[in-house]
Every structure is written in structure tokens, then in C-alpha cells.
């Protein structure tokens, strides 16, 4: 752990730094003293088995859940994230697994939902449509027929692209993506992985939650593994291989193939 932190500091100040984060729900301790560094302009994969606390950690960063203990530093400064608006103000946007798109609204309407632009009290559709089109083309999302088609008529990958485009429209610096490829076919997965690469090329930091190791090794610069609510390891992706990640995910460490750590919660 300390090695990972030292290495991250050597690479410059992380964009988001979490130290000693605790979170419990009633008697269930979901996260214990979690440390995490998310460097700028890189893709960090957050791995872990079901119930390891990946989604809880993401929701703590996004401001959906308040944290019990611990510190969060944003660009080196300590910050308090109490709700989703706080995280959005810092430049953190989240793409949830269910994407949170309204099927009956079109692409532009979804991308601006809750942040509509107005002109003399009425919706400024022209300006919103222009900005949405710019964002989509900068992400090279070109397969949609019309930006005014309802989201219900899009494929899974296109929907994911719209959700990502919605997240990057707001000068965001960090995009959290919860299982972006879980429900997608081969072609659509390819589309989304390329999209993640383009976000990094645009200078954004991305944290991807995934337990699909193919995807993780394809896009991630860094890998962090949660095991039963603890941060098992965090390091550069090149220092891992498939086998070691699986071992961290299933046992919480290397060479602990039998038995689990004493405290399981």
C-alpha cells in the first residue's frame, strides 16, 4: 500500500486522494480505512468481487452516500462532499450502471436534463442542440442517426455513449463509470472502450468499475482492487497480470490461496 502511495506521489499530485475512508450501513461495515489515488489524465480500474464495496466507494465519491470517517483531497486540497451537487461542482461526474437516461426524451434533452439552458424564460433548444452535437462529435460518437431521436431507439453502446457524453459536457475532470460494459455485446463493448480511451486523450481522469479483466487490461493505466471492503492493492497496470488480479480479487492478497483474512465483517 505505502509503496503504491509513494509511487503515485512520485508521479505528481493525484487528482483525487482518499485516506482512511470508512463507511457502514447499520451493522454492516462496507468500507474499512480505504485509501485510493486517482491520478489525472489516466484511467484507473477499480476491481473487486461482488460485494467488495466498489459501488459503495463510487457513490461515496459521487456524494450519494455520506462518509463516516476519512479524508478526501481534490487536487491536493481537503474537500467535503455531502451531495451530488458538491461532487459536480468539483468536476466529478458519474455514469451509473443503469445510465439514468429517460427513454422518452431525445439525446439533447437527456444530455441537458436538470441543467437546461434558457433564453427569456423558455428552453434554448438551438444552443443546447449545438453544444450536444459538438460534445458528441468530439467523442467521435457518429453512429446515431439523429441527435433528436429518442433514447429508446438507441443501441446499448449508443446509450452508454450518450451517458458518457452527458457526463463530460460540464468541464468535468473525473468521470466515474460503473460497469460500463456489463450489458453490452462485443461490438458495443469495443465502442465504449474506445470512448474511454478518447476521454483520457481529452485530458480527463476516468475511474472504471469492472470485473471484466479483458476490459481492465485493455484500458486501465492503474488498477486498484477492493477485497471485502478493504483496498487490497493499488498499482500501475503493468505491474499486474491477469493471475495476480484474480488472486487479489478472490483472496485479498498474493499467496493466500487458501483461507480468508481473519476479519470478514
Amino acid at each position, binding site marked *: 500500500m505505502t509503496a503504491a502511495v509513494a509511487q503515485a506521489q512520485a508521479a505528481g499530485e493525484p487528482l483525487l486522494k482518499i485516506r482512511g475512508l470508512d463507511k457502514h450501513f447499520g451493522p454492516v461495515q462496507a468500507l474499512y480505512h480505504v485509501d485510493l489515488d486517482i491520478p489525472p489524465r489516466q484511467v484507473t480500474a477499480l476491481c473487486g468481487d461482488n460485494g467488495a464495496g466498489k459501488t459503495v466507494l463510487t457513490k461515496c465519491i459521487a456524494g450519494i452516500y455520506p462518509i463516516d470517517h476519512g479524508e478526501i483531497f481534490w487536487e491536493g486540497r481537503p474537500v467535503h462532499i455531502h451531495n*451530488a*451537487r458538491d461532487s459536480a461542482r468539483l468536476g466529478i461526474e458519474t455514469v*451509473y450502471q*443503469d445510465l*439514468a*437516461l*429517460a*427513454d*422518452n*426524451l*431525445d439525446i439533447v*434533452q*437527456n444530455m441537458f*436534463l*436538470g*441543467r*437546461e439552458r*434558457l433564453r427569456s*424564460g*423558455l*428552453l434554448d*433548444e*438551438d444552443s443546447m*442542440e*449545438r453544444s450536444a452535437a459538438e460534445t458528441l462529435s468530439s467523442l*467521435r460518437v*457518429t*453512429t446515431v*442517426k*439523429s*441527435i*433528436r*431521436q*429518442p433514447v*429508446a*431507439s438507441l*443501441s446499448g*453502446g449508443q446509450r452508454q455513449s450518450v451517458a458518457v457524453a452527458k457526463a463530460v459536457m460540464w468541464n468535468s475532470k473525473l468521470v466515474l463509470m460503473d460497469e460500463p460494459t456489463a450489458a453490452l455485446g462485443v*461490438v*458495443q463493448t*469495443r*465502442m465504449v472502450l*474506445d470512448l474511454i*480511451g*478518447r476521454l483520457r*486523450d481529452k485530458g480527463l481522469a476516468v475511474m472504471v468499475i469492472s470485473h471484466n479483466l479483458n476490459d481492465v487490461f485493455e484500458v486501465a493505466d492503474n488498477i486498484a482492487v477492493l477485497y471485502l471492503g478493504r483496498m487490497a492493492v493499488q498499482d500501475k497496470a503493468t505491474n499486474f497480470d491477469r493471475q495476480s488480479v484474480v488472486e487479489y480479487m478472490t483472496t485479498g492478497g498474493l499467496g493466500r490461496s487458501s483461507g480468508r483474512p481473519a476479519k470478514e465483517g
Partner: protein
Amino acid sequence: MADPLKRAEITDNVAADLTAAAPEAAVAELPPEVVAQSLGEYVRGYVARIRAGESGVLPVVMAMVAIVVVFEVISPNNVYLSPGNLVNLFQQSAVIMVLAMAEAFALVLGEIDLSIGFVGACGAAITVQLIQPATTNWPWPLAVLAGLLFCVVFGAIQGTLITRLHLPSFIVTLAGYLVANGLFLKILLFGPFSGYPNLTGQSDNLHFIYNLMWGTIDPIVSWIGAAVVVAALGGFIWFSDSRRRKSGLVAPPASLSLIKIGLIAVVAIVVVGICNLNRGVLIVQEGVPWVIPIVIAVLAAWTVLLGRTKYGRYLYAIGGNPEAARRAGINLSVVRTAAFMLCSFTAGIALLLYASYLNGMSNNVQAGYYVLYAVAAAVIGGTSLMGGRGKPLHGVLGGLVIGAIYNGMYLLALSFEWQYIVTGLVLLAAIIIDAVSRRGSASGSVTRI
């Protein structure tokens, strides 16, 4: 990794090939006006959508034609299409149209409001009672405000119960229906009118409310007014469409804009023309009834509210995916409660028109099944019962269909038994249309979370 751009191109091509495999389905899913570059493309897109079950206003128009033909043939002395009856049909439909526009606020959310008939009737009865010269003799603007205020408060109470306590709107508004029915009968008993407060008498206030339905606009003034409205609306459509075309935004082809404007002009000419024919028997009676501009004003206001304001956008978002709306920072309780208030408010307008039509209020008011007519009208017009889809215009189109049936039964002097049976069947037909059109389409209504 080495060449992400190139790989992206390949991906796009593969994706394009996959969609190309089912071009018909892909075209049918999209509203033709957002993809068509020319009129021909629009027509092809429209036909594909009809085949896919996404038929828009076409069934309404076809139903309308069928109803008109049948009733014209079987009505006594073929009186159905006479100018006098057509104006009467507009007047009867107006109540259903406005009530259907009211119901749209609840339906877009995926909720229903069964109480609006009697809530609106209470409001109208309050207004009619307050302007009676023998008792309170309030000026009409105050009396109308008081009646509408009652409706808004009733809607706010129901909306609060539904949104804050998470109660089903069906049950809350069913309870509201009974409460409002009782209150309505109580309100009628006030004053020296033994339950039948009416609008006959010498008072400007009484005359004004009576004229909402029966007052007419001078034929020349109506032609000028219609020309102004068509020119303003046509100009708006033409200039905003051509501006969007020029700046490369999604816009219909110019020919389609012109067809739209032409259609509006034709409707205006037909309606004003019919109303300006002499429909009197002994004396000359002509001119557009006040109620037509009133309905158009409600339609215009609610179309702008739902289509071009944040509030309307949030209403559709909640109807489509409440969780997405919540995460977007929208205050669901406020938006939904306000929808029930707007619903009751609009119902107040509808029943005030009804009071004017009946020349007063009485316990004969069929407010209970007017609600069912309103739901049927909205659904026949294209609003979904499942939420997320619906426009005020749907209420107007569907209201005309229901009004045409209601008027035809009235001419045939069908007994109440038959009117109940027909009402039930029409409601059933509306729901079947909704369910079938939803099953046939991918982009129509939405599965609720």
C-alpha cells in the same frame, strides 16, 4: 492502442453494418421529422412508422371520418353536418377537450386523476353561486378566481398525499371524486335556488359567464382574428424552422414546414367558415363562439408550458424515468404536486365552460363520466396511460372524436342506458389502441421502473 482513431473507424463501420441489417426497423423507430432531409424521405419514414404500429394522429383522423359518415347517415333528417349542429358539437367537445388537457398533466406522469370532473364542478358551482345578484353578487373575475382557487387547493392536497405519502393516485383521486361529489351537492344548496343556481337574470356577471359558451364574435372580427393567429403561428414555424435549417440543426424540410402551415390555415378557414354560416332558424345567428378562442388559448398556454419550459421537460423526464430525473437534481415532489394542481386548475376551466353550456349548475351534471371521456379523449389523441408521452393537442383531437360520438348519440336521442354502455366501450377502445400501439413500437411509451 497504437492507433485509436483507426480502430474507432472500424468500430463505427461494424456498428453501421449491424444497423444496416435491419434498415426497416431502424427507420420505423425514429420520428420521421428528425431524420428526413426531403419530403419524399419524410413520407417513406411516416409509412414505415405506420407499418411498425407507431401511427401518430392517423387513427384519430380515420376514426373521425368514420364517425362523421355514420352519424350523418343515421341522424334524423341528416342534421349531423348542419352548421347549427357542428357549432353545437364544437361547444360540447370544448368541455371534453379542456378536461382532457387537464388529465394530460396526470397521464404524462404515469398517474391518473379521477377527481377532476367533480373538483372542477365544485369550482364552477362556487363561481356561479358567488355571482348571483340576489346573494353575494361578486364581480365575475373574482368569482372565477375563487372557483379556480378551490380547484388548485384541492389538487394541491391530493398531489401532496400522492407524492409525500407515496399513495397510489388512483385511490387518492377516487376518494377525492367522492368528497368533491358531496361538496358539489352541498355548494348547490346554498342560496335561494333550491339546488339549481343558474345564469338567467339581469347582471353583467351572469351574462359574462353565460357568454363563455354562447357569446359569439362578429364574423368579420373572427376572420381577422383567425388570419392574425394563422399568420403569427405560420411565421413562427417558418422562421424557426428555416433558422434551424440554416444553422445545420435538426429541422424538417421546407416543404414539410409549408404543409404544416397550410394545414393550420385550412383548419382555421373551415372552423371559422362553419361558424360564420347562418345557423339560426328564425333569426340570423352566426359568428365564432367565444369558447373556440378560449380552448385555443388553453391549448397554446399548455403547449408552451409542456414543450418549451423547464417544468414541462421535467414532467416528461419523470414520466419516462423518475430515477434519472431524481439524479439530475429535479425535485420530484414539487414537480408532481404542481402537476396535480395544474390538472385541477384546468378542470376548473373546463367545468366553468360546462356551467355556461348548461346555463347554470345542477345535480344533473355528469361530472363522473366526463372524467372517463377526458381520459379516453387524451388516449385516443395519442397520450399514453403509462406515462412519458402526451401533448395538450392530443386532448383537443381526442376531445373532438369523443364530442362527435356524444353529439351523435344526443341527436339520436339515445337513452342514458345506451350512453353509459357506449362511454364504457369508447374508453375500452382507447385503452386497446394505447396498448396495441405501444406493443408495436420500440420508441413509444416506456417500461416503468
